[in-house]
C-alpha cells in the first residue's frame, strides 16, 4: 500500500510540475515527513500518542517521523529520553521547553505547531484525537490555512483516509488535496501501538531543542490555566483497557454503581457509563462512552442496564466481544451484542461477582 502511495504521489507530482522538474519537490513531496504531537505525563509518553506514531508509520513506508514534546522542567527531559527510544520509527524528537507549555492550553500550543511547521515543512502532522488533540490541532490548522481530518480510523495512502461520520453509522473515505501539511487526528483504538520490540531498546533518536527565540504569541495572557479536577482511579484507563464494564440508567443510583466497580475490580476492567448515567450524577463525565464521550474498543465490553442508543453505540461498536445484560428484551443493545442476557442486573451482577473465576 505504501508503494501505491508513492506512485500516487509521483503521478501527482508529474501532473503538477513540468517534466524537467520531475524529481524536484512538488506541492506534495514524494516522501512523507511527519510531525507527531505527543502528550507526556510523568516522564513517559501517553499511549494514544504512541498510537499516533503507529498511524504515522502507515502513511508512507519511508516516512521520517519526528515527535514534538512541549512542557517544562525535568519531567519533560525524561519524557524526551523516553520518546527517543519509544518506537523504532521515530527519527527525531523535538523539545519545546518553556513555562508557556506547562499546561495544555490551545493558544501557545497551536502557535508552537505553526512555528515548527514553518521551519521544517512536514508533509503531515498527526495527533491522537483525545481532548488534547481535538482542542489544539484544528486551531493550528486554521493558522496554517489547511483543513484537518478528525478521528481517522484507517490510512490507505498518504492522503487517503477513512473516518466515521454520523456517530459511526457511515464511513467516509476522503482524499486530502490541499497544501502542506496534511493534518490528522487519529482514533487511537484503530492504531494499536505494538509492544516494545527488542531493537527499539537499542534505538535512540536524536533529541533537539526547539529554538523559541522567535516564538511570539499574539494571544499571550489571553488564556490562563486554573486547575484540573480529576478523580483518581486505580483502575485501568478507559481508553486502553482490555475489558470495559459499563452501566446505564438501569443502575438507578450512584450507590449501585459501586457494585459495577466491584465487578470491574474483579475483572481488572475499566468502568464506563452512558450519558444517562452521567447526567443523573451516578459517575463523573470522563467515564462517558459514546459519540461525544470516549471511544473504546476493548476485547470485552459488558453493558449493564444500557439501552443502546445510537450515540452510545458510536463509542463501543468496535469492541471485540460485546455482552449486554438488560431487562428489556427489545433493547437495541441486543442487536450488537454477541452475548445477550435478558434479566435483572441486580441479580446478574452479584451472581457474576460470586461465580467469576479469580483473576490470576
Amino acid at each position, binding site marked *: 500500500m505504501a508503494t501505491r502511495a508513492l506512485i500516487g504521489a509521483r503521478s501527482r507530482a508529474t501532473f503538477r510540475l513540468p517534466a524537467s522538474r520531475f524529481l524536484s519537490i512538488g506541492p506534495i513531496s514524494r516522501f512523507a515527513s511527519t510531525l507527531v504531537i505527543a502528550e507526556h505525563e510523568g516522564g513517559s509518553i501517553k499511549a494514544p500518542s504512541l498510537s499516533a506514531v503507529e498511524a504515522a508509520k502507515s502513511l508512507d513506508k519511508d516516512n521520517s517521523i519526528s515527535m514534538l514534546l512541549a512542557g517544562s522542567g525535568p519531567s519533560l527531559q525524561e519524557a524526551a529520553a523516553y520518546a527517543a527510544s519509544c518506537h523504532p520509527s521515530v527519527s527525531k524528537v523535538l523539545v519545546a521547553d518553556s513555562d508557556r507549555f506547562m499546561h495544555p492550553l490551545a493558544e501557545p500550543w497551536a502557535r508552537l505547531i505553526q512555528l515548527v511547521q514553518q521551519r521544517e515543512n512536514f508533509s503531515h502532522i498527526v495527533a491522537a484525537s483525545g481532548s488534547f488533540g481535538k482542542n489544539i490541532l484544528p486551531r493550528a490548522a486554521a493558522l496554517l490555512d489547511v483543513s484537518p481530518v478528525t478521528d481517522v480510523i484507517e490510512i490507505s495512502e498518504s492522503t487517503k483516509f477513512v473516518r466515521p461520520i454520523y456517530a459511526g453509522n457511515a464511513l467516509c473515505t476522503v482524499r486530502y488535496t490541499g497544501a502542506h501539511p496534511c493534518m490528522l487526528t487519529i482514533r487511537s483504538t484503530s492504531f494499536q501501538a505494538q509492544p516494545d520490540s527488542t531493537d527499539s531498546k537499542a534505538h535512540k533518536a536524536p533529541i533537539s531543542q526547539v529554538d523559541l527565540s522567535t516564538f511570539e504569541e499574539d494571544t499571550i495572557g489571553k488564556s490562563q490555566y486554573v486547575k484540573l479536577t480529576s478523580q483518581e482511579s486505580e483502575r485501568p484507563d478507559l481508553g486502553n483497557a482490555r475489558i470495559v464494564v459499563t452501566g446505564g440508567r438501569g443502575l438507578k443510583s450512584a450507590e449501585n454503581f459501586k457494585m459495577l466497580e466491584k465487578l470491574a475490580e474483579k475483572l481488572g476492567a475499566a468502568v464506563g457509563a452512558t450519558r444517562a448515567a452521567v447526567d443523573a450524577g451516578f459517575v463523573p463525565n470522563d467515564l462517558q462512552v459514546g459519540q461525544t464521550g470516549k471511544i473504546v474498543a476493548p476485547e470485552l465490553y459488558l453493558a449493564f442496564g444500557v439501552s443502546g442508543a445510537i450515540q452510545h453505540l458510536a463509542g463501543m461498536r468496535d469492541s471485540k466481544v460485546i455482552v449486554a445484560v438488560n431487562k428489556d428484551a427489545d433493547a437495541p443493545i441486543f442487536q450488537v451484542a454477541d452475548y445477550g442476557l435478558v434479566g435483572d442486573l441486580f441479580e446478574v451482577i452479584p451472581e457474576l461477582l460470586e461465580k*467469576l473465576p479469580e483473576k490470576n
Partner: protein
Amino acid sequence: MKIMVAVKRVVDYAVKIRVKPDKTGVETKNVKMSMNPFCEIALEEALRIRESGLASEVVAVSIGPAQCVDTLRTGLAMGADRGIHVESQDGLNPLSVAKVLRALVEAEKPGLFILGKQAIDDDCNQTGQMLAGLLKWPQGTFASKVTLDKEKQVATVDREVDGGIETVLLDLPAVITTDLRLNQPRYATLPNIMKAKSKVIKKYTPGDLNVEMKSDLEVLQVTEPPKRKAGVIISSVDELIDKLKDEARVI
C-alpha cells in the same frame, strides 16, 4: 455586549441514517432535520447570559442552503434577537465556515462567540477552534460551565477533558464551544414561535463577505460500517461465564 451563536441544520439525532446506494453520501431527502443538539446548548447558554444582564443581544448565524432559515427561526423562537443566514451550497467544511464566521465577527463585533463542540453529522469538532485561531481569540472548548465577569472582561470556563474537568480563564472576546452538560435547552413556546416570524434574518452570500467556499478534502465514498455478526441470547450467568471463557476466550 453582543453574543454570536453559530447553529447548524443537521439530520435529527434520533434518525437512523441511510447511506445512499451510489456511495456518494447519506440520504438527506425526506429525512427529519433539526438544529444540531450542541448548537441548541450554545444558543441556550447565550440566552441565559443575556437574561442575567451580562449581554444585550444574541445573534444566531447559520451557513448553508435556503432551509437553514428554518433552523434560524427555531433559534429566534427560543429567544435569539435576530438571525444571519449565509446562503451557500458548496464548500461547507469547517475551515470555510470558520472564515465566514470570522468575516461576520469583523462586521458585528461581538464580545463572545459560542458554538457547539461538534456537529453530529460530520462529527468534525473543528469549527470553534478554527474560528478562535483565525481571530486570535482565546478558546474554551467542551465547556460544561461558563461564568462571565463583566468588570474584568473575563470568562471562567470549565472544560470536559479526558482526565476530568479543566478550568481556564479567558480574556474576552473569546470563543466557547459547548459540551452536553452545559445546560438543558428550553423549548420554544407557541407565542414565541409566532413572535419569531417577525424577527429579522439578514442574508449574505460568501461572496458578500469575500470568502471563497472551497474544500481541500475530496469525499471519495461514503459506505456503511461493517455489520456485526448476529449474537446469541443466553439464559444464565453460568452459560455467560462458560461462553466468555471457552468460546470467546476473553476472561
